[in-house]
């Protein structure tokens, strides 16, 4: 596996162009550049195909580096790379003697080429939540019953969400967007947001911005900006009304459901997503308002909790088919 696949390797670039591209990338990655510098850099890239290729090659170096860190946290990968840099035979032998093993050493070049690619699909089971460090600047948490694929390239990374919900934190790396059947979500650098597929009516993709901001681009409609502490639902045609984000919206990331006068039917529907088997709520009690905090990791205990404060009881058939019915 080569983390630095050369981009169009036969094309020789004028060293002066490469040098100029380096000045641009260093200026833009400094974290102190403004919008006008970004625009000027973009104009320079569009001036000549060589400019663009030089830019892409340099951006690709950083991308390759982050890719290679894979699931490791940035600090860990950095420490390992520094440790590799200061090797000496004595240290190595000492270290290996301490461990008593020589692990994975001395693979031949031929064997190295036969290794499979890193998998790119992630999935959670019902009731499972999972953290993922996609790159140094991209952290994800997958909610229960969620599926996503990683797509794109150095210039445009893409997370394809096909099921469930995720929490996304991005730093200042190359652009990243999230795609669903409804369209695209483009988080701004240093943003934290939740993106989920809403089933039922109305259906669509729900975007909730906790920090930073994002741009929502419905597949066939105009883009809209979304600021922190705001949420909206969009479908392929248009983005819906922007609403204030309830403080409890991110509770699921901590394994909690926080209800503030939430209809019982909705509470049960939420718990159902974390529980295998059939869980239904009798329409006669579905409108009862519920307040409290419930564990998503132990949905059955949460159901029992409901019976303490509400005039309901839990009817269990074989533990699998569960109904919330009037007491």
């Amino acid at each position: 596996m080569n983390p630095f696949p050369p981009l169009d390797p036969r094309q020789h670039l004028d060293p002066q162009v490469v040098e100029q591209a380096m000045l641009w990338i260093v200026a833009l990655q400094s974290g102190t550049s403004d919008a006008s510098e970004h625009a000027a850099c973009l104009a320079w890239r569009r001036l000549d195909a060589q400019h663009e290729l030089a830019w892409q090659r340099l951006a690709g170096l950083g991308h390759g580096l982050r890719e290679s860190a894979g699931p490791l946290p940035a600090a860990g990968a950095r420490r390992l790379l520094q440790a590799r840099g200061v090797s000496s035979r004595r240290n190595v032998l000492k270290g290996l003697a301490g461990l008593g093993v020589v692990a994975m050493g001395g693979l031949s070049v031929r064997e190295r080429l036969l290794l499979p690619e890193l998998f790119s699909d992630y999935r959670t089971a019902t009731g499972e939540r999972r953290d993922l460090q996609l790159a140094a600047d991209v952290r994800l948490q997958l909610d229960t019953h969620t599926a996503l694929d990683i797509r794109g390239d150095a210039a445009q990374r893409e997370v394809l969400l096909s099921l469930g919900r995720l929490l996304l934190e991005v730093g200042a790396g190359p652009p990243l967007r999230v795609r669903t059947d409804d369209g695209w979500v483009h988080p701004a650098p240093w943003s934290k947001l939740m993106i989920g597929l809403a089933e039922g009516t109305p259906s669509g993709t729900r975007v909730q911005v906790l920090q930073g901001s994002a741009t929502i681009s419905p597949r066939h409609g105009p883009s809209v900006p979304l600021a922190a502490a705001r949420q909206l639902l969009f479908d392929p045609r248009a983005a819906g009304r922007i609403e204030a984000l309830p403080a409890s919206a991110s509770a699921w990331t901590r394994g909690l459901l926080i209800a503030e006068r939430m209809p019982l039917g909705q509470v049960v529907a939420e718990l159902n997503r974390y529980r295998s088997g059939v869980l239904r709520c009798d329409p006669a009690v579905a409108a009862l308002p519920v307040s409290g905090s419930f564990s998503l990791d132990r949905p059955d205990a949460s159901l029992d909790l409901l019976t303490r404060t509400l005039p309901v009881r839990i009817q269990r058939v074989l533990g699998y088919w569960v109904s919330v019915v009037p007491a």
Partner: protein
Amino acid sequence: MLSTPSLHRVVGELYAQHHGWVVQLLRRKLGNQDQALDLAQDTFVRILRSEQVPLLREPRAYLNTVASRLCGQYFRRQALERAYLESLAALEPQFLPSPETRLLVLEALDAVGQVLDGLGARVREVFLLSQLDGLTYPQIAERLDLSVNVVQKAMLKAFRHCYAAVYEA
């Protein structure tokens, strides 16, 4: 440049005359016969792949250079593996990555390390803080107690080096 069959012939002769000597050289450096045999093999493969016929006036000096470079890479790789194993030792068993994943991580990091080889520790740290951690230059400057100007120069140096390693090798 000589044609490929001729390159094969030259390397074949090198192999016949000097393979035993290269193994001995590597065994002294590595202290291990199996590793020495592996790296000796890699030494000749490296020469074949370079597609440049070496000048044969000083074949052993040349072989020594190639073999020593491979040896250095091998030690650096070992240091990386050791650091990685140490970092895994802190993990609960259920979070341990599979052997396949470990190998892929090591391969990828080692390949990155080879591109970074030759950069000083400080330039490398600056580059990694920027590219891996996503820190801004003022943040890196503060963290490493440098001026922003020095950080910027280090970044340019690192980009020049990595570009040359990938595109001008």
